[in-house]
């Protein structure tokens, strides 16, 4: 119970949110993929983003990561309005992304992918493959101790290994805001547990995380807050303590809470008051 109150206190109104998205829209011709979404993320907060397939979760995340320009809307990072014109812009603001598609170059090996676009170089501007290999070995080992085939093209790796590379790439650099679009979809149970540990560790460091997931268990296990998208619209945003899994399912499927909904922790809240 005291834990709940502490959690609430961590996100009081005074801390400036890391991310403030306001009125984000994305149109593809006639299709409205994201429809006027406003959403905040605070330091050290894990926000679960849920919704049916095609709800617009990935589009919203891609807009924040600079991969896609919004049709309308505004993004603030640490209080300042920013233009996310390219993935480089987003990275410059500390936004790192694990894309649902992983975004790996199949013919390159793991270190080359990890450092793609941000290669380590020697004094003469040559690629420092030795150092990149050593660094990659280090960071990959923290996620999957069995990762040894670092010199193979990533096309020959398993889905889980590929996902681990995408995760490693996002956390290796100076990350403040982490977007994880279904990061554990291809992972086995032990790797998933490692990613869960990683998320807790990053959150403790004050990093803000958007976790897009279909796994209700993970979401309830890891998130402080959960938001639900339905047909491009944000239909719900709740502290994880005040909802049941069934409430969230109802939001995902029907786009609204059950009519008889009451906050799960109503008793606690009243007791605290």
């Amino acid at each position, binding site marked *: 119970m005291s834990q709940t109150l502490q959690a609430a206190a961590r996100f009081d109104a005074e801390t400036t949110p890391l991310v403030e998205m306001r009125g984000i829209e994305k149109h593809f011709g006639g299709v409205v993929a994201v429809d006027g979404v406003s959403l905040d993320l605070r330091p050290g907060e894990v926000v679960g983003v849920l919704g049916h397939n095609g709800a617009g979760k990935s589009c919203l995340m891609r807009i924040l990561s600079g991969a896609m320009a919004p049709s309308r809307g505004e993004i603030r990072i640490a209080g300042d309005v920013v233009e996310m014109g390219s*993935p480089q812009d987003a990275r410059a603001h500390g936004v790192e992304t694990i894309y649902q598609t992983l975004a790996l*170059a199949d013919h390159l090996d793991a270190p080359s992918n990890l450092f*793609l676009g941000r290669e380590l170089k020697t004094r003469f*501007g040559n690629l420092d493959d030795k150092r990149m290999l050593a660094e990659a070995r280090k960071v990959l080992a923290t996620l999957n101790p069995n990762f040894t085939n670092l010199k193979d093209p990533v096309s020959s790796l398993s889905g889980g290994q590929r996902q681990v590379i995408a995760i490693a790439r996002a956390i290796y650099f100076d990350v403040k805001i982490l977007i994880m679009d279904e990061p554990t979809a291809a992972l086995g149970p032990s790797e998933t547990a490692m990613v869960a540990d990683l998320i807790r560790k990053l959150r403790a460091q004050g990093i803000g995380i958007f976790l897009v997931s279909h796994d209700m268990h993970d979401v309830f296990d890891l998130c402080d807050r959960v938001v639900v998208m339905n047909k491009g619209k944000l239909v719900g945003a709740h502290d994880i303590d005040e909802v049941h899994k069934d409430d969230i399912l109802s939001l995902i499927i029907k786009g609204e809470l059950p009519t008889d909904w009451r906050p799960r922790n109503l008793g606690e809240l009243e007791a605290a008051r």
Partner: protein
Amino acid sequence: MANISQPSQGAWTRMLPNSAAAFHRISALLTLAILVIAFSFASPAFLSVNNTLTILLQTSVIGLLGIGMTMVIITGGIDLSVGSVLALSGTVTGMMVKAGVPVVPAMMLGVCMGAACGLFNGFVVTKMKITPFVATLGMMLIARGAALQLTGAAPISQLGEAFGVLGNGALFRVVEMGDNGFPRVIFPGIPYPAILLVVVAIVASYMLRRRAIGRHIYATGSNEEAARLSGVLVDRTKLIAYTLSGALAGVAGNVLMSRLITAQPSEGVMYELDAIAAAVIGGASLMGGVGGISGTMIGAFIIGVLRNGLNMGGVSSFIQQIVIGFVVIGAVYIDQLRNRR
């Protein structure tokens, strides 16, 4: 049992992908060796110093074009314009020389002309979003038309001795005055075009393997969207590849015209196909992301040796086309067999 076989199997599979690229190069190298041996048995003159130099000269043009082509192919594109750009560049140089410009700056201008054509290709591909096949097909017609128009379709000859040095000169050439008053060649030297080819190949290989731009070229061809999301400037990468291809076509044009000591606006027709064949025989994939300079060099020499050897054997150029056509298909087929494993 399982315990014994597993480690060795693991080691084997780990080696496979790396050895796969090497496998292709080795098989291409083997093909080249077999060709050389077969031709030298068929005709003793094949391995003579003079004929070896001829092969070097002939291969240098395909090789230069092939290096640029390889970079473009690795990005997932293709450059059909190199044969025409070669002609336009050589023609521009010839006209400059004719107009009184000294040879070296004239040649530089010719190479710049080629680079400009390549830059235009890159612009059409990246900014106008036209597929490389169509974009460079357009440039193929534009450059050829320009070369023919500029010259009135007539070759420019009598360009002077200095113009012929690049194509006909050689390093370490040793000539002795004979007793009969005629010069006697003791060592024919290393032809400049061959030296140029080696230098360009080494620089290009260094660029592709050791510099960030090279890595970005591979990444762009491997998965363009992934490269973009990783922060690779995909458009800039492609622009550089096409510009280099154009510039190298310009260099090749100058080498070729210098060798003929004539600027020929109708030279280089279908050379782009030889360049593509060299890259593909050397292991480059038209799907992008795969290829290398050493492979392309082997491919260029296979084509050069094949042409030369068949010529010496009195085989008609039509039959040569047929043979090279089958070689290209065979090389790609072997490559696919390897990838299917």
